């Protein structure tokens, strides 16, 4: 499969994503420069973490308007799988490809540590290979990962099963103590109504090899590849 990793000025995790997709998951990977306007022959697109455009204005705000984004939008609306990790998630929120917004972490400080998240929905290509209720151990590294959505929108995305991951403890219990940043309802990841666009704050690419302490992140990429290989159709509309 051919997977594109978008490189914005200020992306920090682009090389990490390329490494994991190419060397660990064994896929064909292309770096997509933010200044391009087309995504050629890609099966999936990853928006990596970092500080795109320095996160000036708001995290992800400037990147959401970069030349490549209309092509990402078109790819997403045609059912193509799009994964936004950390800053990539923020970009997808700012671009309106995912519902809700990010505000500064509760406590205002950057947080870099390992957390647990629970799989809430297996309807996305990135989680189809996982079990509902499965607990993943992944690192977070962000200052603005406090997920917010107005009450009505929260209800809508809960009903539509768009909440894909929630922060939890090692036993899978969703508790206030397990919430590292103040996200509403411990939300760590959400998807588009069709499920083909996913954003999450933790970094699966930093937990895809035994030597780094956890391989739980790898299952997210493996799930994507399995879906692509099986040509699982994504509902459009």
């Amino acid at each position, binding site marked *: 499969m051919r997977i594109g990793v978008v490189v914005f000025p200020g992306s920090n995790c682009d090389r*990490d994503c390329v490494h994991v997709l190419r060397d660990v998951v064994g896929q064909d990977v292309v770096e997509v420069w933010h200044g391009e306007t087309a995504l050629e022959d890609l099966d999936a697109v990853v928006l990596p973490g970092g500080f795109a455009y320095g996160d000036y204005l708001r995290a992800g705000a400037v990147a959401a308007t970069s030349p490549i984004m209309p092509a990402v939008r078109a790819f997403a609306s045609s059912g193509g799988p799009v994964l936004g990790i950390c800053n990539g998630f923020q970009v997808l929120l700012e671009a309106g490809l995912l519902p809700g917004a990010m505000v500064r972490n509760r406590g205002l400080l950057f947080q*870099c540590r390992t957390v647990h998240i629970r799989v809430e929905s297996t309807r996305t290509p990135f989680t189809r290979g996982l079990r509902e209720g499965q607990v993943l151990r992944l690192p977070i590294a962000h200052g603005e990962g406090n997920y917010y959505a107005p009450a009505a929108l929260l209800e809508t995305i809960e009903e539509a099963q768009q909440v894909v991951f929630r922060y939890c403890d090692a036993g899978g219990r969703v508790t206030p103590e397990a919430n590292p940043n103040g996200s509403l309802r411990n939300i760590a990841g959400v998807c588009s109504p069709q499920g083909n666009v996913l954003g999450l704050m933790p970094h699966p690419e930093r937990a895809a090899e035994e*030597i780094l302490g956890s391989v739980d992140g790898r299952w997210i990429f493996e799930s994507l590849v399995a879906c692509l290989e099986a040509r699982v159709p994504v509902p459009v509309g």
Partner: protein
Amino acid sequence: MSPTLPRLDPAAIGLTPAEYEEIRRRLGREPNALELRLFGVMWSEHCGYKHSRVTLRALPAESPRLLQGPGENAGVMDIGDGWAVAFKVESHNHPSAVDPCNGAATGVGGIIRDVLSMGARPIALLDSLRFGSLDDPRVRRTAAGVVAGIAGYGNCIGVPTVGGEILVDPRYRGNPLVNVVCLGLVRTDRLARARASGPGNAVMYVGARTGRDGIGGAAFASEELDECSEREDRSSVQIGDPFTGKLLIEATLEALGTGGVVALQDMGAAGLICAASEMAARGGVGVTVHLDRVPLREQGMSADEILRSESQERMLLIVRPEAAERVAAAYHRWGLPATVVGEVVAEPELRVTHGDRRLASLPPYTLADAPAYRPVASEPQRLWDLWQIEPLPDDSGPQDALLALLASPGIASKRAVYEQYDHSVQVRTVIAPGAGDAAVLRLPELAPKGLALSVDGNGTLCALDPYRGARRAVAECAANLACAGAVPLGVTDCLNFGNPEDPEVFWTFRQAVSGLADACRALRIPVVGGNVSFYNESPDGPIPPTPIVAMVGVIDDVRLSPRMSFRGEGDLIVLVGDPSGDLAASTYLRVVHGLDRGRPPDVDFELHQRVLSVVRESVRAGIARSVHDISEGGMAVAVAESAIAGALGADVVLPAAPRRDSALFGEAPSRIIVSVGEESAAALFALADASSVPVSVLGRTGGDRLRMTVASAGPKRTDIDLPLEALRRAYDALSEVFR
């Protein structure tokens, strides 16, 4: 643009009458006002190493693996198979005192670009920080600002902060220390240097535009801080922009890939004039710089301001003319200016022009080679008094003493700090902060090889004996590396001292350098470069002499590197090394009894090497389940830390000692705790035996309490019996300060 400046008093720009005479002698004429200002900044202590250069010659810089020693922007060592590491430490003490957040942030940015100047991709940062007492609200504000600055810059630029240390001593109150280490990875055939060559080559300015920030920063760093510094010296502090810094990394690595870059250097301290004169001096050529071509952020900047500005995220490149377009294109692609501002000339003359006006014309060496002094040194007599620790206070309450030590800032968990730093970006971090004595990075390029990094220094010991204190810092670094199974490769040092013109301060400097030199010779590793920071004084007086040592080591198989945490119930806890600790200059005496006294025990490097080799071999053999160096707080603290980290209790009996507290809390180098499964014990003893290193089984892991007893002939008693939860609470004392 004003080419002429009012006549200057040399003293106003920090030059002595003798230095002014020397300038006249070297030029064979009077310098003009602009030239004089350039001398003022280039001959500052910060740029010129005037008071340290002669002493620094004592440091060893030989190794078969050394690719670049002192004199370049960073040292470089070969790690095999076509790869090398570039590393260096630098201080940003004065800026951090005045503006903690921006001062620390630009410290991070500056050292990253020094490593980048060698053609290396920066892959790791470590920080060594010193603050006054954290009970002082002003110190707390400084500390929080420094941490925020490091986090803000390091996180955004995408280089992980993988380790460091924070120590607290009231003597750093007015003058905190912020020393930042950066390490980069470079293919040996891509190694770059800062040596201008090739008449006709272009001088290219890349990165951010030049503004009025940080003018005279290097000179400011060469003065003592006073009460007004915070208010008056703000304009000497640069403002960093990590986003531009990140673009500069990517664009520069891309530009180096074109093969058209002959040399490059960061425009850091003393800005454009420093980069231009140093690169020209190294190459024995001349350089012409046309100021009217320099990209400016502000209108109406004078020649002096343009030349001395320390605006961040700028570099100066020497580029082959035919490649200039391709090199510039790499920067433009990343949205950065890249402009040819001059050219290399054969005649060794640094010329500064604006339009058709020549503003300065000097041989580059006259600026780049500041005079070297041999300051007077005199031994402070009071040291002898401070070495007396008799009569010692009563040995009582070991439980309270252990909890007090665990909660003391030097020992307590730095989690609240390092969780603010991205330490896992670049997917190399195998042992993260807090998990081991050294940071461990994997090298997928050379798998299963890896690197271990440690930064250490102990101003409190150095204040009591700078020679021994410096040796202890080197020994500690080497021990930390051994805990990860690493063989030391090389050292970079940051020497933080007070005013070198004070004979007692200079004596401590000379002693410390000599300690470093002897220690590195004993370990057969080079000092690949570093930094000297003098004039660390405030109205409270000078800081303790603080040599900071950062050591890099290579690990053959990173999969075997153990952490410091106890792993399995019933493992044997083994002490490798001599059991006896010393209370002199111990953290215990200072924290528990308020006594900052005693002569620090020295290092027997012959024994040290043998102890470290046993530990390293046990790691390589895959039998060490946890390894932890015994340092501050002695054996009791080391065992407690491994228990806390592993959430696993322990029951240990320490060998008898004249005093119970010296057994528990006494300190000495060359002692490491290794835990092994019962089945591996014989193998560990055999390793120790083969090297004639003493080993003793202290006890076993297990349960959720820490029990410690010092063996004695008297009735059986338990000296420490505490639940892990109590230890963890004490160890978490800093979380309130930094959150």
